[in-house]
């Protein structure tokens, strides 16, 4: 089976000749009468880290949930590797190679770490799970030491590692991360971003939703900014200014030495 460490053969970075790994084309998300996302297009190339920024309620989580079929789409298309997956059910999308680490980690708290991980590998064989386990332990040593503990007893940072580790067992080509640093202590936040970079180095393509604009832009290749469900700006992360985005769209005013 494809291993994590196998790097996708691609030029990486944006604009690789129209063959995006994940592509949103005019996506709309509607909950009843409420339009959470309007006509949003986004592209993620193989091997990239792309970040999706915006204030609370801007439609970031709705976008990620819509990609994996957990939020109702009201228009547009989702393409994965050129294939239309707009109307696929969640389990099929996961089997094709996209998975989401949801906001708030959502580990199964009354199941053990082992049981959580085994569910992550639900679509795979037992042998595949066993073969993959050392690799996950290597990435997240804490999961090894707390293998039989109830997931609900782990700290926030440990739960985040469990949620990411669990998602990796489905061998995703694209990993959607929804606010992985939310609610974590500053020192743990740094390690989460470190993990995201290491995943990319192992060939996993990442679409990252974050409220920590500066850190997200620091590791991302490109970024998109959503406001009220609409695309406000996008570009290479070196062209996007964290301070500007925070001030214009997140309502954060920070004094920064220039």
């Amino acid at each position, binding site marked *: 089976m494809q291993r994590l460490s196998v790097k996708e053969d691609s030029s990486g970075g944006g604009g690789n000749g129209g063959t995006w790994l994940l592509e949103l084309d005019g996506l709309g998300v509607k909950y009843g009468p409420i339009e959470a996302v309007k006509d949003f297009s986004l592209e993620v190339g193989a091997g990239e880290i792309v970040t999706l920024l915006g204030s609370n309620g801007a439609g970031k989580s709705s976008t990620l949930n819509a990609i*994996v*079929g*957990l939020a109702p789409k009201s228009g547009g298309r989702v393409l994965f590797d050129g294939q239309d997956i707009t109307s696929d*059910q*969640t*389990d099929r999308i*996961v*089997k094709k190679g996209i*998975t*989401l680490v*949801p906001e708030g980690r*959502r580990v*199964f*708290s*009354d*199941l053990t770490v082992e*049981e959580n991980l*085994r*569910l*992550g590998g*639900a*679509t795979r064989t037992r042998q595949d799970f066993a073969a993959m386990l050392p690799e996950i332990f290597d990435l997240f040593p804490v999961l090894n030491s707390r293998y039989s503990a109830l997931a609900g007893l782990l700290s926030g940072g440990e739960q985040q590692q469990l949620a990411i580790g*669990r*998602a990796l067992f*489905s061998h995703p080509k694209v990993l959607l991360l929804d606010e992985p640093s939310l609610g974590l202590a500053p020192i743990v936040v740094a390690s989460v971003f470190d993990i995201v970079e290491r995943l990319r180095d192992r060939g996993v393509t990442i679409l990252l939703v974050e409220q920590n604009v500066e850190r997200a832009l620091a590791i991302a290749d490109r970024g998109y900014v959503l406001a009220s469900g609409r695309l406000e700006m996008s570009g290479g992360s070196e062209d996007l200014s964290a301070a500007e985005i925070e001030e214009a769209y997140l309502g954060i005013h920070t004094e920064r030495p220039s």
Partner: protein
Amino acid sequence: MNEVVQQIINFLSIGSIYALIALGVALIFSILKLINFAHGELMTFAGYAMFFFHGFGVPWLLLVPIAILSSVVAAVLLERVAYRLLRGAQPLTLLLTSFAVSLILQSGFLLAFGARPKAIEFPIWVDAFFIVGDIRIQWLDIVTFCVTMLIVLTLTVFLRRSITGLALRSAASDFNTTKLMGIHANRVIVGTFVVAGVLAGLAALFYFASTPVVAPKSGFEPMLKGFIATVIGGMGSLVGAVIGAFLLAALEVFVEVTLVGSLDVYVDAIVFGIAVLILRFRPAGLFGLRRIEDVRA
């Protein structure tokens, strides 16, 4: 002394039947937040299946799997026809629907088989017993208890070790995240109903073996007992369901033994009264940890 041992055996047998029912009710509730009052009708279904196929001279060795299978089929159909359309509906809507389904099934039985109870002719070996000292012990009671314990054990291993079992447990706490594991949501729900059907079928076998007549409303009383057992144990907790079932059986046997003569029509009233008292002080049941939802809201 003999009386005590006899009653203990009695208690274990009744408790086992309640436990099988309560487990089915608790399993469906924990995953779908649905109190399936039609669970009793699954048992009635198995009862009529035994009656019907016995009429064709089908041997008992085959009637046992037929009874279980008919409950399973009924459970899966129930999900497909009634509950699937209401996925994610309010718990109260689900509850009312299950009452409706229960009534419709009872009416269906009435139309198909008539109001008069049908006797199910169990083979003689169901009454077989052995004698220890002065105590007459019925094999059926022993089998009922042992099979129930085996089922509890199997179910525990299934829920702990198999991926499907793990998926049932994770779906009980977080359905959407379970889907993100690449697990087909329908498969989890249908799986739940299959397991509940097996439990109802087994419960029906043991229940009708001791009460060998089936009528359209046969399933109501055992279902009520099983439901009360799950409530006492704490809705949604499988361990609680089993303990609640044996507690209810113990109460029932104890009240029955201590009440003199003409008072024994009040057994249910007293037992249910005690259940109400337990809930007065532990509203979430003995093992229920989740907070109680106010259905008036």
